[in-house]
């Protein structure tokens, strides 16, 4: 099983979390009129085989959004931070 060490609740089964996708994709400023920037933010993904920074929300626990660095080929977790303290 995949366990995520929640910085608030400790190690928990990933079933308690909701996945939120790639956390490394920069979001354009809200008033950015450039369609290319929005196209890239909405659709283009690096999709690495290896370390991947991604959002998870601990919906069945503290309900915090986290940024987890997880290896997509073997699921080892490198780091977990609160999303709001993490640089975008």
């Amino acid at each position, binding site marked *: 099983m995949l366990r995520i060490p929640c910085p608030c609740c400790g190690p928990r089964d990933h079933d308690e979390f909701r996945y939120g996708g790639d956390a490394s994709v920069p979001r354009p400023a809200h008033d950015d009129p450039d369609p290319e920037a929005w196209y890239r933010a909405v659709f283009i993904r*690096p999709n690495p085989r290896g370390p991947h920074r991604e959002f998870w929300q601990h919906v069945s626990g503290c309900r915090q959004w986290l940024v987890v660095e*997880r290896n997509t080929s073997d699921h080892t977790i490198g780091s977990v931070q609160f999303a709001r303290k993490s640089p975008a």
Partner: protein
Amino acid sequence: MARYSALSLFLNGLSGNRNWPRAWRAPEPKPSYDVVIVGGGGHGLATAFYLAENHGIRNVAVLEKGYLGGGNVGRNTTIVRSNYLLDGNTQFYEFSMKLWEGMSAALNFNVMFSQRGQIVTAHSADQLDSFSHRANVMRLSGIDAEILTRDDVRRLVPYLDFSETARFPIHGAILQGRAGTARHDAVAWGYARAADGHGVDIIQNCEVTGFVRDGERIVGVETSKGRIGAGKVGLAVAGHTSVLGHKAGLELPIESHVLQAFVTEPLKPMVDHVVAYGADHFYVSQSDKGGLVFGGSLDGYNSYAQRGNLGIVREVAEAAVALMPCISRVRLLRHWGGVMDMTPDASPIICPTPVDGLYLNGGWCYGGFKATPASGWCFAHTIATGKPHPLVAAYGLDRFRSGRTLDEAGAGPFAWLQ
């Protein structure tokens, strides 16, 4: 290529089946080919076959990093159907269905295509309305579709939950009678044998590690068996499209996710159709060996591991028992995972790429197996002519930038929710 027939079966039987020739050769790679197809799964092998068969391009190699058919063509739940709603999908998948109907004869290889019919259950009046919409689109496109009442469904598949306590009572269903299943390994083997018969080199245990460029143009591939020159390169490596695409400098709207499939212990014949559950994500058929073969949703997070997690095992088992309470005591024999290219609109990508000399076939999400023949046919056309086949005109990479996405599921641009 020795032709398979009832007579050859009889004659080889007389000699104890010791003299069957190899189904395909195991050549060493030549220094260069007109076309190199990366990926020896169903789509890559079908592409090589149609390049030779339809376009006369026989100086072709298919490079497979593992063994032939060891990826998703051997990992799916073998379902073939053409019940698509959106323009672009409807015609493409029906063309594929027609190729399935002639495949065993065309390849001289029995792919055990069984048109047993697919039933998708509806669990509300509104859902049945939406199925009627779909059925009308299909029939107007010349595809068979029927709407079934609850009584019809009960007559065809009495083992579903028709009790008063069913959590989601069955209101009716949509049936495509020509849908069914095929022996997935045989599809890979049949295309491999037929392509080899046309002179295509199928090279296994040959991993592509990079691309050779002449200026901007790709003119070959670096592999674990050395450099191989290529007039054109076609990628058919769904699951790992991003990994290879990156090496070629492509930026892609794809995430890799793991999808699990399951098989139970063998049972007496019970499930005569392909049945899909309209109230959850669950689809089941019964194999010739008697096992119930079924699947559900993605695990739901980016993954290149060909194994899944237990949470989905539970979810799929819950859906299975909600639809078919009679199998609650049946034991699972195996479950396995395959890596899916998930696109943001759940539709595939077949097109020339911005990189000169490189052609892309990927993004198959859940739907690659049923598309195998049409994908090969249209990808071969795209490679041979340099222009997309009309049937895959809607599957270009540019659709995401231009806003013409084909979002059949209406799930929004989240790959893991498709």
